[in-house]
């Protein structure tokens, strides 16, 4: 099979389109979640989405749309809990997550389906995406990407420092809720490609990879989006030729890129640490020469107590420490 073959199948063209848009949208929202240190929020919403899918099966509606609805309700609930309860927040979140999974299984049973029916959504089943599905996915993902980029100055400020954003007059709660809703929509959009159990990986792993190499927020976000799209499309193509599960392939590809980037990132960090205390062009750090005259050189037998200080020896002289520097002593 050559490269052209893949486009000969309608279902593959749809799969690639869905993967491309999902790949861009998931890390865009993921960047804000990571910035707020809520990297696992996508995972939580993924659990809630199970109930949403089941509601769709029960009511014979499109599971994507019912999942969007239920996820938004769940994401708003998570945000309210985060804002209100500082102490018991993670327990409340856990309750919501498990309630989502259990509710989903129960309702699926009521609908006459089994856990098998849910599997398409839990692990993704990109090749069964219908024409209507793909346009829903593309439209929702495009909306998320536009919002995430268009409101990036405001969302950045709110995620960076909520209180400062409040003093700027930003509607902090509205922006936080918007981030939650975008995360909810992204999860539902991505559930057909990578599946609900792996969706959080596509939101977080490209961001973790990007920040190995970057220093700024905007660069991190754009690089993460590119990495996400590459892993997503690459994963679908790979799974087509090798008959792998697409969701797992996408996530493992993203992780492989992270593993490759990590040593580069650590090397950069190591080099920076080496140079950190010495700004470029600065010859010597400011220091204080001691005023006392010395009629002797401090040494092993001068009678002043010697103290090991970093890479040199200080001598205790009238209650303060002297260190030899060129032709005088410095105060340490």
């Amino acid at each position, binding site marked *: 099979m050559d490269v052209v073959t893949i486009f000969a199948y309608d279902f593959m063209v749809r799969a690639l389109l869905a993967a491309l848009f999902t790949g861009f949208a998931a890390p865009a929202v993921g*960047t804000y979640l990571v910035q707020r*240190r809520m990297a696992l929020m996508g995972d939580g919403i993924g659990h809630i989405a199970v109930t949403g899918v089941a509601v769709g099966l029960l009511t014979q509606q499109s599971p994507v749309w019912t999942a969007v609805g239920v996820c938004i309700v769940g994401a708003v609930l998570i945000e309210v809990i985060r804002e209100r309860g500082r102490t018991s927040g993670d327990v409340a979140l856990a309750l919501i997550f498990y309630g989502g999974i259990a509710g989903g299984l129960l309702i699926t049973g009521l609908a006459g389906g089994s856990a098998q029916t849910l599997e398409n959504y839990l692990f993704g089943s990109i090749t069964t995406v219908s024409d209507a599905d793909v346009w829903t996915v593309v439209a929702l993902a495009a909306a998320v990407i536009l919002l995430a980029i268009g*409101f990036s100055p405001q969302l950045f400020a709110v995620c960076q420092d909520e209180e*400062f954003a409040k*003093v700027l007059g930003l509607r902090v709660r509205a922006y936080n809720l918007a981030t939650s809703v975008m995360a909810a929509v992204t999860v539902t959009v991505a559930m057909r490609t990578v599946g609900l159990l792996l969706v959080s990986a596509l939101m977080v792993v490209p961001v973790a990879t990007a920040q190995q190499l970057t*220093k*700024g*927020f905007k660069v991190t*976000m754009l690089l993460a989006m590119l990495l996400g799209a590459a892993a997503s499309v690459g994963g679908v193509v790979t799974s087509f030729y090798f008959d792998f599960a697409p969701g797992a392939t996408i996530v493992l590809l993203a992780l492989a890129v992270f593993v490759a980037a990590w040593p580069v990132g650590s090397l950069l960090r190591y080099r920076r640490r080496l140079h950190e205390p010495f700004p470029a062009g600065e010859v010597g750090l*400011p220091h204080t020469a001691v005023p006392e005259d010395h009629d002797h050189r401090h040494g092993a037998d001068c009678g002043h107590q010697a103290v090991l200080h970093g890479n040199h020896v200080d001598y205790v002289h009238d209650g303060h420490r002297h260190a030899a520097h060129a032709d005088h002593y410095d105060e340490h």
Partner: protein
Amino acid sequence: MSDVISITGGNLALAGRPVLRGIDLHVGAGEVVAVLGANGSGKSTLVRGLIGLVPWASGDPRLFGQPLREFRDWRRVGYVPQRVTATSGVPATVAEVVASGRLAHRRLLLPLSRADRLAVRRAISAVELDDKRSDAVGHLSGGQQQRVLIARALATEPDLFVLDEPNAGVDQHNQAGLARTLRPLVASGATALIVLHELGPLGDLIDRVLVLREGRIGYDGRPDRFTEPAAAHDHHHPGGRSDNVPISSSGWTS
């Protein structure tokens, strides 16, 4: 002309525990007020309450004459929080963090205007971090991160500065740097409310000192008695007065 900050008989409770009681405070335009007091006396809560970050139970708090609840002119307020908030989960450059100070001026969906860029550049220059503007804030030293937060408030070009312990963990050189940065702003009529542990190098900028004691204002008056080292300290600093410490030409150091 109305007061920049005003509150009469303000009470404030956090989680059901009264933190501030009977606060009467009126700060006029151009005043530079230091808020002193022991840990837990309510200094931070007072300034956070005055800019609406924590709600008052009573007291009719006002900013620039408007009731705090209705106040919308946030571009007139520049807030420098305590340093713990300088970093987050994703790296951000100095320029990006400082640029967020312009949001009170910007319209939705429009890019930074020329005035915005100029204000950001001037703010970064004022704290002398020009060569660090593309560096990640998380990689800077504590004192430099504090300067980034100061620059972020400067970028807003506000009429009222509210600084919450800008000198905590900052050495004498950099405290003098903050004094140099604030001096021209104060000279041009800015109002400032600064939470401090001791006046230090900011001493000669301060017009008025508030001392909080267990949630009440215990002293409100001239700063004279706090600028004498013997009065401000109950211990003696070895090695003479702090102004013997050599200060680099700029005032800011790494």
